[in-house]
Each structure stands twice: as structure tokens, then as C-alpha cells.
């Protein structure tokens, strides 16, 4: 009898999406199903997380085909952490969508696509087969294309072009890399590849393949020379969509990089130098980009790029401490980035703009809410004891250990610029008196005139994610334990290989 508990994180969102299709056009019921469905997925994923975290790794061979031949699904601690975070972000975005997505968009299938996107994300995190990972990536991007363009005007369509083209190109490069990898190793199972690739004598060919994977995943996760599509497309879709994109889509690329470059291609001196350079340049250029923006969402898009650099830095330094930092940063970043985009969505609903010169006075108008938002922004900057601080501690320690002083400079620079940028945002949006330059919002109902439950729906995802990021910050001990276990698993993949193939790999 096959254990299906590991497929359910994929099947549940699919079933929710199918159920939603039966309620096509009935916006009210779709809202209920979407929220309850994403909560059910969160409940299940938490159970799976606890099972795997306290117990042992789960694997499933699809159709009972033996390991290197069939498609394998693997739930190790890293995977279940990622699906847990996905479903937390999923619940928050689902609730925020109920309050903020226009009825017209819901009528054209916003919610089913959102759940298909979540299904794709869960699938990508759970698969143990490199070609299957490609398929999940395609499911993610086709769902994200629809969310990106749905109901869009000129700006949204024009910026979607960059997004669509770059993602299609990334897929082709990923596919090319898989083709060459299959040609040289003759297998697609990631655990099996881990053994076989290490034995290949032609290291030049292996490095070329590794670089193709790096470019493919690098475009998706927006690292240094490949990130230009991100700031030019993330500022146009509705806030709820931007939240799920900013929080999760680039992180799938980071997850894939962490997986592939620890399991299949162990970085040699050439690759690790490249990774270090890319990480440092991502940190610096992302920070510079954020510095000159006046549109708050564009600024945050550059901050996404900048912060991808932190995770890349962890991978590049490749020690236990560094990977602990990277895993911790990943956990923190998914929650906080989703939250910041939701925060800006609230600002847009209140004042009708994302352009910082047109905004202001939030602190005077909504003092309590502004305090919560301050917590979110401080977590993003990484003021102790909030969540952004701890992973940086590990990354600095690792950088001193490996004596990568350039990296220390880049890390400090990026942290400092993040602080400057957020301070600018705080003074522009919260403290400056509102300039009242926007004529058109005067006849819109103000936020306080909205009905009580609409306001509750809009604020609750912010509160939920803030609570989670407070827990990550204050309960950092538990998260450190979790991330160091993830780092251990990544550094020593023999447990993963044994769980998938059923035999211990021989140590050469």
C-alpha cells in the first residue's frame, strides 16, 4: 500500500481549485471556498511538517516504480518547511484577496488560478525528480502568467511582456540543462544524480551543465545580471498578486538553487567564486536600485533582488553556518516580503497611490495600524530581536569563518541601504503630512468608511503574518534549530539519498 500523505499538499489545492471552478461566477461562494480551502491546506501542511520534523523523512515512489526509474516525491525537513511557509502565505493572500481583488477579476477565475499556483509551488518543493521539477516550474509560471495579466490595463500588460519572456527563456535553459544532464548521467532522479554526477570524469561538461542550471534558476530567482525583469514587472499587478509573487515565486528559484547546488553539483573552486561574486553583486546592485526609486512597490521589488543576495551569499560560502543563515533568511523572507506587499496594498486602499511623494500622514490617521506596520518594516530591516536580524548574524559569522571580506562588505552595505530605504519609506508614507495631491481619491470612500468586516478582512492577513514573523524573531531558538537541521541535511545528502534509493551511498 502506498503512502499518499505526501501527495496531499499537491492534491488538496488542486481539489480546491476544481471545486472553485464549479462556482464559476459566484463570487461570494468562491471567496469562502478559497479561504477555507487554503486554511485546510495550512492545517494539513502543519501536520505533515510536525510529522517529518519530529519523525523521519517521507518518500513516495509514484505508481510504485522503483526509485531511479519512476518519479519520486520526497518530504525532507527543507521541503516541509517550504510547503508550510507556502501555505501560511497562501492563507494570508487568500484572505487579502477577498477584500482587495475586484469582482471582475474574480469572475474571470482569479481564485482557481491562485490555488493552482499554490499547488505548483507545493509540487516543486516536494519533488525529487529533476524533470518533474521542470514540470512544476511550468505549472507555476503558467498560473503566474494568468495572475500577472488578468484584468490588466496598459501598464500591467506592457510589464507582463518582460515577465513572460524571461520566464519562458529560463524554462528553455533549464530544459537544455536537463537534456545535457540526462545525456551525461543517464538518470533524472535527484538522489541518483547526486551519486552519478560525482563519478563523472569529464568535469568540464559537468560545470557547463551546472552553469546552465545556474542561469535557468538564476533568472527565476532574480540574481545579479539576470534580475532586470523583476523590478519592471512586479509593480503593476494587484497587491495580493504582488504579495504572492514577491513572497514565493523568486524563492522557488532559490530553493531549486539550494537543492541542486548542494545535492547534484557540489561547488568546486570555480563555481564557488562565481557564486560569491554573483551574491555580492546582487546585494550591491539591488540596494542601489532600491535607493533611487520613488514608487514604493518598485523600491520593494529592488529590495527583493537585494535580499536574494543574502540567500545566495549563504549558498556561496557553503559552510554549515552559512547554509543555516540562508535557510533562516529564506524562512524569514517569505513571510516578511509577503507581508510588506500586503502592507503596501493597504496603503494603496487608504490613499490610492504607490508613489511616495503623493503619500503621507498614515501615522496621524491610523496610529495603531502604523505601529503594526512599523514591526513589519523593522523585521525587514533586521532590527534585533525581530526576524531579519538572526539570519544575518549567521551569515556574518560564516563570512568571517571563510574570510570572505568582500562578502562582509556587501552584506553590511545591503543591510545598511535596506535601513536607509525603509527609513525613507517611513518618513514619506507615515510621518510626512499628506500632500493631498491626488484629486481622484477624494470621492472614494476612505478606509474608515468601509464596513467593519471588510476592514477586518483587509487587516487580518497583516496581523497574521506579523504574528508569524514576531514568532520567527522572538522564538528564534526554534527556528535556528530548524534551519541548522536543514543545513545539515543539505551539507550531508546521504540521508536524503538513503531515504530515496533505500541503500546507503558508498563513500568514495
Amino acid at each position, binding site marked *: 500500500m502506498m503512502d499518499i500523505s505526501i501527495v496531499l499538499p499537491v492534491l488538496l489545492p488542486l481539489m480546491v481549485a476544481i471545486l472553485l471552478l464549479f462556482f464559476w461566477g459566484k463570487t461570494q461562494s468562491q471567496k469562502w471556498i478559497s479561504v477555507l480551502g487554503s486554511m485546510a491546506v495550512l492545517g494539513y501542511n502543519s501536520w505533515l511538517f510536525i510529522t517529518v520534523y519530529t519523525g523521519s523523512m517521507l518518500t513516495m515512489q509514484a505508481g510504485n516504480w522503483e526509485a531511479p526509474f519512476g518519479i519520486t516525491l520526497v518530504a525532507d525537513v527543507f521541503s516541509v518547511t517550504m510547503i508550510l511557509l507556502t501555505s501560511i502565505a497562501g492563507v494570508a493572500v487568500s484572505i487579502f484577496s477577498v477584500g482587495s481583488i475586484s469582482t471582475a477579476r474574480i469572475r474571470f477565475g482569479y481564485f482557481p488560478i491562485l490555488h493552482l499556483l499554490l499547488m505548483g509551488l507545493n509540487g516543486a518543493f516536494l519533488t525529487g525528480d529533476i524533470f518533474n521539477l521542470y514540470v512544476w516550474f511550468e505549472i507555476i509560471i503558467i498560473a503566474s502568467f494568468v495572475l500577472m495579466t488578468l484584468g490588466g490595463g496598459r501598464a500591467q*500588460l*506592457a510589464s507582463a511582456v518582460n515577465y513572460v519572456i524571461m520566464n519562458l527563456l529560463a524554462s528553455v535553459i533549464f530544459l537544455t540543462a536537463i537534456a545535457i544532464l540526462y545525456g551525461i548521467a543517464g538518470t533524472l532522479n535527484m538522489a541518483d544524480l547526486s551519486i552519478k554526477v560525482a563519478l563523472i570524469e569529464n568535469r568540464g561538461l559537468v560545470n557547463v551543465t551546472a552553469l546552465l542550471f545556474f542561469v535557468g534558476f538564476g533568472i527565476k530567482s532574480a540574481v545579479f545580471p539576470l534580475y532586470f525583469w523583476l523590478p519592471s514587472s512586479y509593480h503593476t499587478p494587484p497587491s495580493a498578486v504582488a504579495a504572492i509573487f514577491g513572497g514565493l515565486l523568486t524563492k522557488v528559484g532559490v530553493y531549486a538553487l539550494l537543492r541542486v547546488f548542494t545535492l547534484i553539483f557540489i561547488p568546486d573552486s570555480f563555481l564557488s567564486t562565481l557564486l560569491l561574486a554573483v551574491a555580492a553583486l546582487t546585494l550591491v546592485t539591488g540596494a542601489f536600485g532600491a535607493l533611487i526609486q520613488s514608487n514604493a512597490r518598485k523600491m520593494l521589488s529592488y529590495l527583493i533582488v537585494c535580499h536574494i543576495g543574502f540567500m545566495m551569499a549563504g549558498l556561496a560560502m557553503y559552510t554549515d553556518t552559512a547554509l543555516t543563515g540562508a535557510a533562516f533568511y529564506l524562512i524569514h523572507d517569505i513571510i516578511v516580503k509577503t507581508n510588506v506587499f500586503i502592507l503596501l496594498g493597504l496603503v494603496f486602499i487608504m490613499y490610492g497611490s504607490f508613489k511616495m511623494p503623493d503619500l503621507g500622514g498614515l501615522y496621524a490617521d491610523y496610529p495603531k495600524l502604523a505601529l503594526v506596520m512599523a514591526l513589519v518594516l523593522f523585521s525587514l530591516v533586521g532590527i534585533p530581536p525581530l526576524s531579519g536580524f538572526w539570519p544575518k548574524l549567521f551569515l556574518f559569522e560564516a563570512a568571517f569563518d571563510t574570510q570572505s571580506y568582500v562578502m562582509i562588505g556587501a552584506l553590511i552595505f545591503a543591510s545598511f541601504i535596506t535601513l536607509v530605504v525603509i527609513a525613507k519609506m517611513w518618513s514619506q508614507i507615515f510621518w510626512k503630512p499628506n500632500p493631498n495631491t491626488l484629486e481622484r481619491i477624494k470621492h472614494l470612500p476612505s478606509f474608515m468608511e468601509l464596513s467593519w468586516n471588510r476592514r477586518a478582512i483587509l487587516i487580518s492577513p497583516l496581523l497574521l503574518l506579523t504574528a508569524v514573523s514576531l514568532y520567527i524573531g522572538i522564538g528564534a531558538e526554534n527556528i535556528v534549530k530548524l534551519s541548522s537541521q536543514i543545513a545539515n541535511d543539505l551539507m550531508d545528502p546521504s540521508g536524503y539519498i538513503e531515504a530515496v534509493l533505500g541503500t546507503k551511498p558508498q563513500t568514495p
Partner: protein
Amino acid sequence: MELLLAIVVGILYAAGIYMMLRRSLVKLIIGLILLGNGANMLIFLLGRITKGSPPIIPAESKVFLEAYADPIPQALILTAIVISFGLQAFAIVLMKRVYQVVGTDDIDQVNNMEETL
């Protein structure tokens, strides 16, 4: 045969990248299609081409007696074709819509439009 396929794959990639570097939206899509086909051919080529020996065990024996063609590349290509078909269909519709809304198929102008908005 393998040499011929290798040359075809090279030409497809080169042509695809050349087309993607042009500024017209239509040429961009054509470039992507060429690249996708090139990738599929590459999987086929690297899956070791074996002529005329399907992976079927004869009825009278229990194991393969001679070299057989690897069936996996075909499964991969089939999957990749279906996926790229869907994505390309979407991309073409998007390009048409962008052309109608923005009024140009020059990528520079589309991007300028996005900057000013």
C-alpha cells in the same frame, strides 16, 4: 545521423537566440519557439539514438538480448512539447493583446510605455 542532428540543434539554438535579440514581439516569440524545438531535439540527441530496436522484450525471452532504444527521452520530449505548446499559445495571445493595447510591437517602445505609466 548524430552529426546531422547536432548541427540542426546548433542552428536552431543560434537562430532562436538571434531572433530573441531582435526588437519585434513577433520575432521574440518565433525565437522562443525555435529555442524550445532546439531543446527537444537536444534531449532526443543526448538520449543516445538507437535505430530500429524498440525497448520490447521478445515473447520467448525474459531479458533484453541486445541494445535497445531508451524510451525516457521520448516521454520527456512529449511532455516538453505539450507544455511549450500551452505556454507559447498563451504568449502569442498576450503579444496580440499587447499590440492592440499599446499600439506597437517594438519592445523598446513597450518598455518606455511601462516606464512612463
